[in-house]
Every structure is written in C-alpha cells, then in structure tokens.
C-alpha cells in the first residue's frame, strides 16, 4: 500500500503517478492506467480545492480481488448532497464539475462516505478480474 499526502498542487501529480505505476505493475493496460491516473487526479484535486489537505491511499490487494483500490480522505467541509455532486456540471468550487461524475465513469466502483462539516472519504476501484 502507498500513501500520498495532499498538501500542495504538485502532490496531485505525485498521487496520480504513484497510482499509474502501481496499476501498470499489476497488469492494467495503457487505457486503464490512463483512466485510473485521471480519476486520481480529479479526486486528489477535489481534496486540494475543497479541504485544503488530505490523504490518498493506494492498494492493490483486498478481499481476494485483483485490482486497484484508491481511498481519498479529508477533514474538509464534506458534501451536502451526494446525488447533486455526482451530476455532470455541478460544482461549488468554480470548476467544471466533471471530477466526481467523471471519476465514477472511469472506474468500476465509486463509494462516497461524507458528513457535512466533518469530512469526506471516497473509495474508487478498478478490477482486473471482472
């Protein structure tokens, strides 16, 4: 398992590079590697934009599944309305609102746990053994 602290913009690049490398080592093809690194980029940026700082955990072995699982945690403002946040074009940060819905499309699974005022945990997975 790898952990990347998100504190500044360059950490977003670091998180997506680590995720891409681990995906490649596990046997994902180039398109899936690109999907994974792009999803990580979007969600790591959300941490930076909304919470200021947080953590990204990347693991490739869990529950006997072969694939990559990435967890994003922060103690930021949380998400008020998850359904709304998953809609294309919705953003409270002045961005394009593609991050969350886009990441969901790029991955096999996206799970959000959030509490307004307390923080957010987002888990994304891409499986090799579909």
């Amino acid at each position, binding site marked *: 398992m790898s952990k990347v602290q998100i504190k500044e913009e360059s950490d977003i690049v670091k998180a997506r590079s680590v995720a891409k490398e681990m995906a490649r080592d596990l046997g994902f093809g180039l398109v899936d590697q*690109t999907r994974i690194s792009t999803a990580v*980029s979007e969600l790591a940026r959300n941490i930076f934009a909304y919470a200021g700082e947080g953590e990204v955990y990347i693991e490739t072995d869990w529950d006997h599944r072969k694939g990559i699982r990435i967890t994003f945690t922060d103690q930021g403002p949380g998400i008020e309305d998850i359904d709304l946040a998953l809609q294309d074009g919705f953003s409270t940060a002045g961005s394009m609102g593609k991050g969350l819905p886009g990441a969901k499309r790029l991955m096999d699974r996206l799970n959000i746990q959030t509490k307004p005022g307390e923080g957010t945990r987002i888990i994304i997975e891409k499986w090799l053994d579909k």
Partner: protein
Amino acid sequence: MRKSNLKLNLKMESSAIPILKLKEFLIVSIQLDLHDKMAEQLQQDILRRISQTGAKGVLIDISALETVDSFIGRTLAETARMARILDAELVIVGMPPSVASTFVELGLSMGGVKTAINLDEGYDMLEAYIKGQISHTKLTATEEEKEAGDE
C-alpha cells in the same frame, strides 16, 4: 517581505517550458507532467509570446502527457480561445489515443479547439488556415462571430 515578493515575481515569470518561435508560429512541447500552476503559467507565457512576436499560430505538442484531466483540458481549451483573441490560431498535436478516450469518458470536449495527429499535420493545418484567412478575411470574421454567438 520585500525579498519574498521579489522571489515570487521571479517564479511567476516563466513556466520553464520552452516556447520556440519558427517563422510566424510558436512551438511548445510539453515533456513533463504538468501540475495546475505550471499549466496556468504556461498559458500566460504563451499569450505573452504571441503578443511579443505577433505569431499567427501556436502548436502545442502533448504527446508526452500521460494524463489530461479536466483542469489541464480546460486550461488548454481556454488558451486556444485566448490566443484567438490575440489573432493567433492554436493547434493541439499528438494527443495519445489513451488520453483521447479517457478525456471523452471523463465528459470533456475540446470544443472548438483544433487538434492534429502530429506536428507535421498541425503545421500544415495552421498554414492552410492562415492562407485561407488572408484570402477570405470576410468569411472568417463571419464564422468567428457565429462561434462566439454559439458559446
């Protein structure tokens, strides 16, 4: 305080990505993974070079970019629109196929931005565009008005 301001100014001056001038065009090749501030800085650098040189076209090679997320995509598209206001046409060249498919799945479009498969094609595209612009100035103006109206 004064010293730190100076340092910041120096830092803001260049994105460290070379912008080459070739005849009436500028050529930029992005060879490293861009973080957000670098992308914004590159945008400013390109616009400044257009204004300094009067360049008519800009070729941005992104063949070495492994990830183009919504921020980089938006910054590139914005740069193209800004360059157009400065009377320069921008072409993005060499987007890897894996990046292109991910970009669309993410829900993004390059709306109105010219793209080419490689530098050669991009160069030909710019040359043809500029030739066409000179002989059909009136027509181009009408098209651009229409495009602006669409947005």
